[in-house]
């Protein structure tokens, strides 16, 4: 059978890379640089990117085995059980939306307030959220060629900024090969994982490509390009602006752009930041609202979240709920200035999901040994085991070094666990009670005439 809609490798790469390119990535990049000595952030970033390849291998096998837009919800349900899958999926979506909206809105409002100081930061946040919420309710999706142009434009801009800045210092770096102690490097790599958060969210496109291997190839290419781009950009930032100055700003990329190219650099970087945030916001809101809709449809969230707009065919209650959550979260972050907690929280959660992906690969090899796998990771269980070990260490490093992250994640996990074990059974029971007493499907005749 042939399919009418076929995505190209170019779009798969753009989707994978586009989801990770965000304004808060620049803050994370500075955070990485601060854990290591001299201009050696590139070592930690390339290492982080390399380690993410391990997770990408695991997602490639899972995606080939169970190609579905349901993604981790399905992988973990089959590998562990439905409760584990639902708990982790809800927690992941919660962290993503809080992290993306909180950190992104804070960074972008700082950027825009720097350019137009007369407008208060919260006004920018409300404006951005309204724009993206409106786009989502109207069902406007940044996709296809437009997504490709934005993503490749962003990557080109980041790379160009990095190379121009390095050219300005004649490619002279301070101790580029001496990153310092192991603790600093491990912490840097752990936070560096944030730079790649979301690369695996391309797996829902599994049913839109002709060959399932295109998804894994796209993820790998995206990781490779991002690793090199971020490494060059971050090294260039610390080469021309002192680390203390970068760390003191919530918009370090703007400080860097001014140092590299003056006023023109600021304008260019503002456009870059705006594009990165709008695409990330839009993708985040789209994915999480659809997840809420699907979860309500399987009676694991209140039914109100499955309400759809008759005009635009979009889950408007879920989208509006996320808009309200976004307003509250960004308000809290604006008051407390704790945006870095969200960056670290997302890095820790992402590492935990990668650990579970490694475990899922091993579990499904036992549970579904005969099932066809278009892609199978070579060398037995070596890669999944390495994924589990590496990302356990990285998650623990973030959680130990950031007590706030540990507390927030533990509370969120407990809430999700209690919800899944108490509210979900209640909702499902309530639904069963409301269902029509008789099934619509006629009872099969027992005389054998109606089938088996």
């Amino acid at each position, binding site marked *: *059978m042939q*399919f009418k*809609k076929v995505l190209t490798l170019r779009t798969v790469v753009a989707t994978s890379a586009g989801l990770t390119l965000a304004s808060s990535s620049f803050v994370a990049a500075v955070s990485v640089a601060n854990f290591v000595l001299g201009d050696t952030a590139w070592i930690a970033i390339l290492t982080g990117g390399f380690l993410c390849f391990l997770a990408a291998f695991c997602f490639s096998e899972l995606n080939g085995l169970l*190609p579905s837009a349901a993604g981790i919800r399905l992988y973990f349900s089959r590998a562990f059980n439905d409760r584990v899958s639902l708990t982790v999926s809800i927690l992941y979506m919660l962290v993503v939306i809080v992290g993306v909206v909180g950190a992104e809105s804070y960074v972008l409002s700082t950027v825009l307030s720097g350019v137009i100081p007369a407008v208060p930061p919260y006004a920018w946040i409300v404006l951005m959220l309204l724009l993206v919420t409106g786009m989502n309710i109207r069902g406007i999706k940044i996709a296809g060629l437009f997504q490709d142009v934005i993503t490749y434009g962003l990557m080109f801009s980041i790379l160009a900024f990095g190379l121009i800045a390095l050219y300005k210092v004649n490619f002279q770096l301070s101790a580029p090969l001496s990153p310092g102690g192991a603790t600093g490097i491990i912490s840097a790599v752990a936070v560096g994982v944030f730079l790649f958060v979301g690369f695996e969210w391309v797996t829902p496109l599994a049913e*839109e490509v002709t060959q399932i291997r295109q998804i894994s190839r796209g993820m790998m290419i995206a990781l490779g390009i991002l690793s090199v781009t971020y490494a060059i950009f971050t090294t260039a930032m610390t080469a021309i602006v002192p680390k203390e100055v970068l760390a003191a700003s919530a918009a370090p990329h703007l400080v860097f752009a001014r140092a590299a190219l003056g006023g023109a650099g600021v304008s260019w970087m503002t456009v870059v930041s705006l594009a990165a945030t709008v695409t990330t916001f839009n993708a985040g809101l789209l994915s999480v609202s659809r997840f809420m809709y699907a979860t309500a449809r399987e009676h694991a969230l209140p039914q109100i979240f499955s309400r759809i707009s*008759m005009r635009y065919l979009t889950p408007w209650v879920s989208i509006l709920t996320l808009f309200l959550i976004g307003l509250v979260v960004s308000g809290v972050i604006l008051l407390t200035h704790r945006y870095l907690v969200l960056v670290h929280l997302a890095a820790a959660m992402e590492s935990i999901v990668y650990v579970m992906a490694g475990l899922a690969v091993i579990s499904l090899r036992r549970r579904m040994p005969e099932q066809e796998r278009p892609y199978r990771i070579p060398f037995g269980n070596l890669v999944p085991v390495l994924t589990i070990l590496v990302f356990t260490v990285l998650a623990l490093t973030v959680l130990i070094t950031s007590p706030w992250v540990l507390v927030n994640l533990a509370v969120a996990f407990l809430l999700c666990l209690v919800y899944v074990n108490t509210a979900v059974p209640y909702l499902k029971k309530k*639904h069963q009670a409301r269902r029509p007493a008789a099934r619509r499907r006629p009872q*099969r005749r027992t005389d054998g005439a*109606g089938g088996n």
Partner: protein
Amino acid sequence: MATHEEITESLMVFTENYNKNERLKIMNKDWNRIVVVQATDVESLHTLTLLDGVVSLKEGKSNDPDLTVISDSETLADIFYGDITPTEPYNNGSLRIIGSEDDIIRLDFISLMIWGE
């Protein structure tokens, strides 16, 4: 296991209920799609054609589908009779839909509007 006839009946019920819903027809007037429904445990292939908001059903497959719905016969019959939502079997992997994510969601919206929660 449901029979091919039961799947056909479920699809006829689905088609009839869809075409009775004027709101759905207006909403989908620009959504022209060919949907193939394929059972994994019995010989059963059907094609639903959405054209200008109206659905028609025929037996057999189309060579150029936008969406392909694949599951066991029991699940297919239950879904098209509206006894279960497509989301549950989709999330546990017993229902597979090949097509764009937007089209998959739209198909679920249609099921929601015909059968309710």
